[in-house]
């Protein structure tokens, strides 16, 4: 162009393509493109299940966890444990954004692959994986917010204004369809070559949980029994070995989020986020998230090895003073590489595991044997046997509630469990939480309703 100064440049002088980014115009064509796109969809698990994600905050809504002095906007974080959420809560809006952002990453793959010229078998597998993730996300969301705008394809801004909240039943219909498709098409765990990809068992387990939540115990029992019968999974002999950093994708694990420690990798940050703030001995950074309540700590029966595998009672600072702040240690990684003041930890995160299946089966069938498999692994007396604390947990329902709380402690199950069994109100009220039936749903963020006033608010907000 310089050489033709006086005469003018050609129009293509103005056609500049991005240098440091790929361009969406020529993507979503080949099998390689869809591998990249579905990997990105899997990567949404990192935000949706992050230590400060919506599902993690359910521990604050429950009686398991609390917050002390934390970094960031304290009032909006404390509001969960105090049940004083307002519609302007910045965290609630963040959850909404993260979940729908994740759904977009899934929907765009589902949408684009439909017309792409890739082989049908591959197409089916990608669709099944994406629909598993979509089912999982909508299941979390419907339990948090109730009625939801159902988005099943990429939307333009104009289209999105027409999508209002669908009733809970419709949301569950979509979840069920997605998971049934995934359960049918996905391969057994043993046939999965890339650890971390959704398997048939993962879809069935999740479907069982969905049925259970819809009070359909028969269907739940049936499909969960299929998981057992598939012989793909078993309890590890030692509960503690579940939480060894290097023990990944074990036989007990059904769906597990994959992390890799170290710089440049998708590392996990549960350990730093759950460590007490400014501890200076455990971690460089301490997020102070999900600090453990005494109530959870005291829930464990004497001699239950799961307590000390799950919770630290505090830490000793550099001069030997003991700081009694209880915090989760399931995702501890003391050997993580530290870069920029952060531990780049290596721990995976189990979303679904076999102990959960057994406890759900007990709930669905009323058969204490499933429960007792879990207790046996913990080395504790069986329900109904001598030494079982029957005075505290006289019914099987209460026994399951207790067992789930300690077995799955701090794994983002407790609040959903209490809601599923209609126990949230009595249990949480007894522990001093200002909870009402309406507060068992979190609010629709005010920004969402400013953008589209046709979106209704949950009652009580």
């Amino acid at each position, binding site marked *: 162009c310089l050489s033709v100064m006086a005469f003018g440049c050609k129009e293509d002088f103005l056609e500049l393509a991005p240098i440091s980014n790929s361009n*969406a115009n020529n993507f979503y064509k080949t099998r390689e493109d869809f591998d990249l796109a579905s990997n990105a969809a899997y*990567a*949404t698990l990192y935000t949706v299940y992050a230590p400060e994600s919506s599902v993690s905050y359910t521990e604050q809504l429950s009686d398991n966890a609390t917050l002390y*002095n934390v970094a960031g906007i304290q009032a909006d974080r404390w509001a969960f444990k105090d049940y004083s959420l307002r519609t302007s809560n910045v965290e609630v809006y963040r959850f909404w954004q993260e979940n729908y952002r994740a759904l977009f*990453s899934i929907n765009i793959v589902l949408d684009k692959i439909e017309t792409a010229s890739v082989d049908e078998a591959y197409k089916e597998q990608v669709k099944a994986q994406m629909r598993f993730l979509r089912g999982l996300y909508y299941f979390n969301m419907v339990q948090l917010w109730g009625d939801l705008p159902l988005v099943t394809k990429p939307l333009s*801004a104009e289209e999105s204004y027409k999508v209002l909240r669908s009733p809970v039943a419709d949301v569950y219909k979509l979840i069920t369809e997605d998971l049934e498709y995934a359960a049918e098409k996905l391969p057994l765990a043993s046939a999965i070559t890339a650890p971390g990809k959704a398997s048939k068992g993962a879809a069935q387990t999740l479907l069982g949980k969905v049925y259970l939540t819809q009070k359909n115990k028969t269907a739940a029992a049936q499909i969960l029994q299929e998981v057992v019968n598939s012989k793909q999974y078993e309890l590890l002999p030692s509960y503690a070995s579940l939480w060894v950093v290097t023990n990944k994708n074990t036989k007990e694990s059904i769906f597990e989020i994959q992390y890799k420690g170290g*710089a440049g990798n998708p590392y996990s940050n549960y350990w730093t986020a759950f460590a007490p*703030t400014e501890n200076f001995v455990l971690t460089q950074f301490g997020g102070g998230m999900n600090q453990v309540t005494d109530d959870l700590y005291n829930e464990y029966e004497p001699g239950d090895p799961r307590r000390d595998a799950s919770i630290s009672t505090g830490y000793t600072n550099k001069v030997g003073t003991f700081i009694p702040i209880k915090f989760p240690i399931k995702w501890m990684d003391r050997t993580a590489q530290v870069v920029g003041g952060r531990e780049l930890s290596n721990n995976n995160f189990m979303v679904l595991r076999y102990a959960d299946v057994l406890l759900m089966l007990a709930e669905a069938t009323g058969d204490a044997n499933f429960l007792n498999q879990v207790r046996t692994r913990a080395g504790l007396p069986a329900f109904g046997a001598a030494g079982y604390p029957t005075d505290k947990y006289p019914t099987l329902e209460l026994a399951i509630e207790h067992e789930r709380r300690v077995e799955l402690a701090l794994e983002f199950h407790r609040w959903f469990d209490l809601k599923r069994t209609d126990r949230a109100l009595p249990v949480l009220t007894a522990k001093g939480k200002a909870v009402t039936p309406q507060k068992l749903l979190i609010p629709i963020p005010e920004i969402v309703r*400013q953008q589209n006033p046709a979106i209704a608010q949950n009652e009580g907000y």
Partner: protein
Amino acid sequence: VDFAFAQGRAISGKVTSKEEGGALPGVSVLVKGTTNGTITNTDGNYQLNVPDNATLVFSFIGFTSQEVAVGNRTTVDVALLPDAKALSEVVVIGYGTQTKRAVTGSVASVGYDKFKDRSFSNVTQALAGELPGVNITQAQGAPGQSPIIRIRGISSITAGTNPLYVVDGLPMENFNLNNINPQDIESVEVLKDASSAAIYGSRGANGVVIITTKLGKVGKTSINASYEFGQQEVTRKIDLMDAQQFVNYYVDAHNNAWTASGPGRLASDPNSVRPTQFRIPEDFVTNPQQFGKGTDWQDVMYRTAPSHNTQLSVSGGTDKTQFLFSGAYLNQEAVLDRNYYKRLSLRTNIKQTISEKIAIGVNLAFTGIYDRTDGTQGKSDVVSLGVQSDPIFPVYNELGNLGFKDPNSTWYRFATYTDLQLWHPYSLTREIAKQNKSFNTMGTAYLEYNIIKDLKFRTSINGNLYNTRYNAYQNKDMKFGYSSALAARGDVNNSFMLNWLTENTLTYDRHFGSHGVTALVGYTAQKQRDEYSSVTAGNFPNDLVQTLNAGTVNGGTSLASEWSMLSYLARVNYNFLDRYFLTGTIRRDGSSRFGTNTKWGYFPSVSAGWLVSDENFLKNVTLINNLKLRASYGVAGNNQIPNYGPIGLLGNQNYVYGNNLANGLNVTNIANQDLKWEKTTQLNFGVDVGLLSNRLNLTAEVYSSTTNDLLLFVPVPDLTGFSTQLTNIGKMRNRGFEFGLNSRNLVGNFNWTTDFNLSVNRNKVLQLGPGNAPIVYTDFVVTVKTEVGQPLSNYYGYVFDGVYKNQAEIDASPHDPTTTPGDPIVRDVNGDGKITEADRTTIGNYQPNFTSGLTNSFSYKGVELSFMLQGSFGGEIANQLIRYNGIWNGGRNAYAEVANYWKSESEPGDGKHFKPTVAPKGLQEKFSSYWVEDGSFVRIKNVRVSYALPSNLLTRLPVKSARIFLNAENVHLFSKYLNYDPENTTYPATTYSPTATSASGIPSGTMLGVDYGSYPVPRIVTLGARFEF
């Protein structure tokens, strides 16, 4: 041939400048009422045949014309008075110049004289408060920081809001004027209205700042040398709690929370029964006196800082060659610990006339800057840390380390209390070594060719090469002064920018009888490439070697980005009788930044002027020397959007399967192939009046501008997967009034002049995205809301009406259910009897109702004195440091006035400050009127005294003139603001990093006026001397 002419007689004489005494070559000497005349030669001499009783008219650009009756004389010597306000003054406009007489748009012009003694590195800082309609604020006081310039209000929410800078013809977005030595600048012109700026098309909407550098004048070579020594000082510190007040505050905050946490809990309960978060250090209870008044962390961070500025320039020229060589070195310490700014600037400008037809010229300038600047990021940056740090801690512990977090120190006993705060400010200034180096080279080469008489072709090529390099090394553990004991770390960042422009214009300039026409057509092409790279290393064995080779590289990236632009432009100026003026311009811009559907845009303007005072009916009105009416209408654009804004981009989002990293790609933004510039149309009316022999000059202007196709991150429902989409959809209006007055109150031996200006701007949002949904941004509690019918970025929160003294007061009013005595009274704005989120309302706005500047100058013989006042009235500032220093927040120190908090019903405090608690339950921490302060201020901006040595003292020296001067900037601030300066804002004007591919997050310009602990603007006193040889 005139018969009288034949009978004429010869006279001669010399024309000199009355002020400088030197000969004036090129002065027109005309016999009045005839076309008979001549011009003076290089020595200022002339010869002319004149008739009897002739009157001579001497005129020269930049000087007042003089009429002299010849009488019987044969020698007529004349000394002309320079006249800065003369209508013949030349003003630089885009792609050309114009006499002031012919200007029809709104152009403010400032010559070198206005800022020659001002001690700033950036010329625009010296213009703050001088120009009506041009709001220049010093958001951060660090040396080398560019001020924020807003011309006629703020015209955009999301696009960049900086004006376009044009340096010797090269238009630059977000140019850093620190790269131009102010002493090299001949003039600064500001194109304020859209009709003047329309010649810059898609880049003119924020106004245009034109910088023209100097060129030597025909005549003797002049050598100028100067030296200035300066002292900078923070004169207005923030009033904070001392150690005793802080201890009480800490104790009360913990006890208040503990007693509120359950029944039967008493303030007297020992730590042993309290959970960790309610515990109080034993030292605070048993022996608070040990802390005395404690450490004043502002004294620790600030110092009186010297600066040195040395300049040398040589300029001159012959008829054929004009030149300027200059060099300058500025070495400035900053008031903030370990910060400094050093600048070397070199320039050579040469113009050579090769033949009658051809002239060529080259301007070449180099600037190298080494600096270290901390403290401008607010929040947890150094300045803010110095304000938050707890006074109980010493600067150094007994082991010479920085923190109480040193496990071997006795101070470590406080580390148990995790809510005590001291991220020692020295940990950032002394435990991190860092330096920015930036090198700017700017060059222009041009050729002018007079094709035929009146028709000139000009071609030029401009280039700007800008490189920066940043090195940092952070010591291991930082002497325990930081929030955690971090590993050593090294960083190296590099950036590269090359911008080039070719420009070709044809200018036709001709008079046809009473008609004058100047026509311009042009074609330009411009392109810029930016590159950025960074490398990070860790794992250093010790702190001895700090280059990255000593450690292990554990991170790095590189990025590149480009934009390009093609433009066609045309302008016609027409005048009739030099009294009626008409200008029309049009520019067509195509830009790589715009969507494929909207690549090209047209930007037209028209303007007209009428010099009423030249009409016969006013000719004899002696009161009025000059009366001009102007009107203009134009369209200008704002193209400051991300380089690849219209394109849907993919970003990396990797996953891992088992132990195998798997690349992922995901869409990062919604594509919009219709994306284009914002379009601002502006109507401007102006009147210029000169009265009493031009002793009194007034200019008044009114304007109304509307920005259409406002670029917005339109909040789109998150259901799309995105929160915003960059779209041209909104509409905003700025209307305003400007008034400028220049009065020569006294003339003669004792001179007194007064300059006054006043600017009023009203900003209103007319339309936003779908459904006009308001745009709300929240950053660390502070919320700004933009809604239709309101000015941009209202502060939005609760109204606090004081403090509840007792339970009876609470019971008698609507209140949040958690409220107890001592908590804030939250106003029930909507009157529904409940305190809910619906009670949030507008609680202020940054934009002032009006701003004003007043300068008075006095001179007597060689002495000059001037002082300038600057004021801003009616704006509010959101003090984001309230989050740390105004409410309890993790044991940070607080403002001294907070100590007057409610303690009990009998000790209710000042009624403003509520009781502190470590576990607030209600709205105590929410954004409210408690955070918003009056931003009005009056500042003694500048005081100057100078003395020119009388020439008779200099005759035996090789010195032509010598002046010494004393200059003081930011002399005093009258303001009630709690922090350093109400001009402070932590959020700069919106700009897009050249390597940013798409924009996200909060456009920082929407948070203007929010101060999260900004760098104080120091008082600067300089003493200098200037010599001409």
